[in-house]
């Protein structure tokens, strides 16, 4: 449809996005993109990457405006009237979204949505239309039976495939992808990345792929741009940018992904921090008609004093249930549950005992784990409540805990909304430390944080472990972090341990097929990485039907 020339398909220069009259949220952005090329934009939340993409499809939030120039195939996108946009959207520019379930119409079948999207751009009817819909599904690796299904009946990976098929229904030449794998499991993420890469090659698409995860972007992009606070700091070929980042922020971003802090083995005492035998976790009180739903089916875990045990697995596999059970938030029973050699009662009532307070937990979302109405002092005081300390002593301990996590006493009077994400997570850790725990459970504590902050929090955990002899039970999905933490690892699938051992050994030589899939799907930043590896790693993906 467009003329094949050496000139770029998309040339953006001086792009400014923001509310008229206010400071722009995207400043002076420029790049060019040719057919068959993937540009990855990486940035932390608030960096302006999503706004950039929204401006390119004319769907900025109400009231926002874009200025500058965005030449797409001979016309300036930023001066298009609404009718002009309608001719471009779907037909020339397609878009893939972060949350696939939310991006699909829950009231229409996949087939109906596909047919509607195809009809919007191509004069097809009846059998031709149906055939085209089937063809599109096949292209994204879904069987034609999916045509009759409603979105909620699909798995996350299948939903994202459907969203991609919809984006391709008008045969666009530019594809915009807004964090398309963030809501997905690592294994599914790898499949979607491979699919996108293949589509770019087979259709000669130009694509803008944005993500907060440099590792993900490195896996798909030819060119990487680093964005920070509305500005494009630098851009360049992926391998070059990863090996020689020129800007200091880019360096810290790359370093945060690759060089996780060194992790020395702490001295190990005789008595294990946690000895757990045959833990069973189930939800639902088991009312008159309802059976309690068992999610963890008898697992054994050991964490040596001052040691680390990582628990990894797909979401919904029971990782977090183990964490919640150990702090009395889920109905659980076990043959043996000992903390530092002392038996610990499970269940909510057991939390009142001294031994139970020696197990503490830090949650995934730092914002959700602090009551927005409480000051940091009130938040911390909750941990000390049961001790009934005099006011001065309580205050002293709280300040000490804040100092220990790298914040100071001046934070006591702040409210959570006055803190950054990393600071909130530090407060949550300080709160957990106040009861002098033997074992600290970290339930996905890094996943809600930006990459540079992740590295800082990891460094903090590393220090705490050395200084306090604190044992860690680390629940996570990022194998890079697990590798850095060292110690042991337990791989959980569907509520059972399928493999465990030394972290280094298990990750290097996974024996169980589930572990092998996890390791294969791992996204890591390495300068040697090249696109051809995708095809080499996932030969089976070509045109295959994937369970998702």
């Amino acid at each position: 449809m467009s003329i094949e020339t050496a000139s770029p398909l998309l040339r953006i220069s001086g792009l400014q996005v923001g509310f008229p009259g206010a400071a722009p949220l995207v400043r002076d952005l420029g790049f060019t993109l040719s057919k068959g090329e993937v540009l990855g934009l990486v940035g932390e939340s608030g960096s302006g990457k999503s706004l950039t993409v929204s401006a390119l499809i004319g769907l900025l939030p109400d009231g926002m405006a874009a200025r500058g120039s965005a030449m797409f195939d001979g016309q300036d996108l930023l001066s298009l009237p609404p009718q002009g946009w309608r001719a471009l959207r779907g037909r020339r520019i397609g878009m893939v979204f972060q949350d696939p379930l939310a991006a699909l119409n829950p009231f229409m079948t996949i087939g109906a949505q596909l047919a509607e999207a195809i009809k919007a751009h191509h004069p097809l009817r009846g059998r031709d239309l149906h055939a085209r819909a089937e063809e599109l599904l096949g292209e994204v690796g879904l069987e034609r039976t999916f045509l009759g299904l409603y979105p909620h009946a699909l798995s996350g990976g299948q939903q994202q495939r459907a969203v991609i098929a919809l984006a391709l229904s008008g045969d666009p030449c530019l594809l915009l992808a807004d964090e398309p794998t963030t809501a997905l499991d690592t294994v599914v993420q790898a499949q979607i990345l491979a699919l996108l890469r293949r589509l770019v090659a087979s259709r000669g698409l130009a694509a803008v792929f944005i993500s907060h995860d440099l590792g993900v972007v490195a896996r798909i992009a030819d060119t990487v741009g680093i964005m920070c606070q509305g500005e494009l700091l630098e851009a360049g070929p992926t391998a070059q940018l990863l090996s020689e980042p020129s800007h200091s922020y880019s360096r810290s971003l790359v370093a945060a992904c690759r060089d996780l802090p060194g992790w020395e083995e702490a001295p190990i005492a005789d008595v294990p921090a946690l000895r757990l035998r045959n833990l069973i976790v189930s939800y639902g009180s088991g009312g008159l008609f309802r059976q309690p739903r068992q999610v963890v089916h008898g697992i054994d875990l050991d964490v040596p004093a001052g040691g680390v045990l990582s628990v990894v697995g797909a979401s919904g596999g029971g990782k977090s249930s183990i964490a919640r059970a150990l702090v009395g938030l889920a109905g659980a029973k076990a043959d043996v549950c000992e903390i530092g050699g002392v038996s610990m009662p499970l269940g909510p009532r057991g939390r009142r005992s001294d031994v139970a307070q020696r197990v503490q937990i830090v949650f995934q979302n730092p914002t959700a784990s602090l009551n927005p109405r409480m000051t940091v002092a009130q938040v911390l005081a909750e941990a000390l409540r049961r001790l009934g300390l005099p006011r001065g002593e309580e205050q002293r301990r709280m300040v000490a805990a804040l100092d220990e996590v790298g914040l100071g006493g001046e934070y006591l009077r702040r409210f959570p909304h006055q803190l950054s994400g990393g600071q909130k997570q530090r407060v949550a850790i300080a709160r957990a430390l106040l009861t002098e725990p033997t074992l600290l459970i970290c339930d996905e504590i890094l996943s809600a944080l930006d990459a540079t902050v992740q590295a800082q929090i990891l460094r903090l955990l590393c220090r705490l472990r050395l200084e306090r002899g604190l044992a860690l039970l680390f629940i996570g999905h990022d194998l890079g972090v697990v590798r850095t933490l060292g110690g042991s690892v337990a791989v959980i699938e569907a509520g059972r341990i399928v493999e465990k051992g030394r972290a280094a050994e298990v990750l290097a030589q996974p024996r169980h097929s589930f572990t092998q899939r996890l390791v294969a799907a791992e996204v890591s930043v390495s300068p040697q990485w090249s696109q051809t590896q995708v095809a080499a790693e996932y030969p089976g993906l070509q045109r295959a039907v994937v369970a998702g």
Partner: protein
Amino acid sequence: MRAFLPLGISLLRALVLVATITFIVFLLIRAVPGDVVDVLAAQGDLTPAQQAALRVDLGLDGTVAEQFLRWLRQAVAGDLGQSVRFGRPVIGMVEQAIPSTIVFAAAAFSFGLCLALVLALGALMAPRSPLPALVEAINLWSIAVPTFVAGMAAILVFSIWLGWLPVIGNMVAPVVILGLDIAGQLAKPLLEELREARLAPHVRAARARGIHPVLVAARYVLPKTVPVLLALSSISLASLIGGTMTMEALFGLPGLGSLVLNAVSGRDYPVLQAVVMVLALGVVLINAVADLARRLTDPRMRA
């Protein structure tokens, strides 16, 4: 099969609800000191034997539970007793009143719903027109101006001052007044829901796909508001019933409202009992239908 289980359960609950309400009414009426026989006895001279016979006749002998079960058995058989005031079978009076009430309430509700839909959609499409302000105003109107006040004003203005006499007994004015009230309750939450639905990711996705705006509105924005619309409708049912009674009383229309209000002032308990049961049955039935519609329109709940 599974889809019908919740339906069965909600029907069962509805029946239990009606039985409970009916029983409570029964208890309340029996709790009032002095029954009809006492009243009649005070007016004329009835021997104790006559009083007892009358009690048996009116189903007022035995314990309350016995009376209730007997009443229920007869009610199921279609016998709701005799009106104490008019001496006519209650079932006949109720049967006569139901159609006009249903016609009136349905007319007012349909008018209100259509008006609310038109206003909300208009305000959504044309945010710079006076329509959003109109939605706001009609909402305030429905809260601040009770239907009977509006009705009185209409009678004053049209019937008394302007002399267009046939306002009393005519259905147009009360339907418009009650319809405005319903529209005021529905339009604003509906508009808020539509505005929110328009920001939903799947709406954005459809626009990004280049789907025609009219199709986006019809297939993506509107269906999302159906559950809310159904919930709102079943909430406004209460005020629809109250409004219908008020309008019937004010404009002298025949119907369940007039019937029950006269029954209260005349202590005609068999009629009161029957009308309350019919109204409760109606409310519960409509709620069950709304619940069913919500399930059927949402594929996630159909499975």
